[in-house]
């Protein structure tokens, strides 16, 4: 079964709007949470990552919010642009098994101009 649950499966947002993707996990041993971005015809690429010692990390228009007690984390894309249209995957890994990433099912984001 999927260890990281991701929602929604897809979303459509207008240019300039905010895209929000949510992920939840059960395994409290997870302590590294990256997000990968995949454009059509390409492999996924690391977008941004967070560790649970902080509740938020921001890189440009992309922000991860992390709620350790709720075992949830989310990606916010501010001022969404057509070039942000892609599939986004959340993932998690644990220090004791550091090579292995457990991925969510993915969210396809479409930004309408």
């Amino acid at each position: 079964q999927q260890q990281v649950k991701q929602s929604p499966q897809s979303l459509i947002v207008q240019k300039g709007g905010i895209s929000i993707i949510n992920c939840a996990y059960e395994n409290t041993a997870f302590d590294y949470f990256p997000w990968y971005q995949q454009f059509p015809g390409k492999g996924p690429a690391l977008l941004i990552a967070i560790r649970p010692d902080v509740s938020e990390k921001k890189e440009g228009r992309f922000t991860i919010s992390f709620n350790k007690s709720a075992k949830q984390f989310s990606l916010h894309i501010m001022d969404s642009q057509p070039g942000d249209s892609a599939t986004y995957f959340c993932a998690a890994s644990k220090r004791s098994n550091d090579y292995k990433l457990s991925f969510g099912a993915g969210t396809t984001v479409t930004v309408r101009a």
Partner: protein
Amino acid sequence: DVKVTQSSRYLVKRTGEKVFLECVQDMDHENMFWYRQDPGLGLRLIYFSYDVKMKEKGDIPEGYSVSREKKERFSLILESASTNQTSMYLCASSLGFGYGETQYFGPGTRLLVL
């Protein structure tokens, strides 16, 4: 820039055929991975290699094997292809020195088994 290349972008094979998917990375990475990507399921790890000739099973190894004879090359083998192995296959690599490392992905091979 790290480059991970996969031998084919598209492959069409018949049920029962032996299929080889090749992956090469040019950054002297220790770790290499094979995933399959299916709609609604995300990326699932098939096999992982942390050194030449070393391998570990991932979450869905059944029906697959791997080979890593050289550090830069990691092959995925479908011994007898079946229609349920129709999927996108992604290879990735990472440095291999610690926790929370970035994985670098190739462009994928879309395999259709008829």
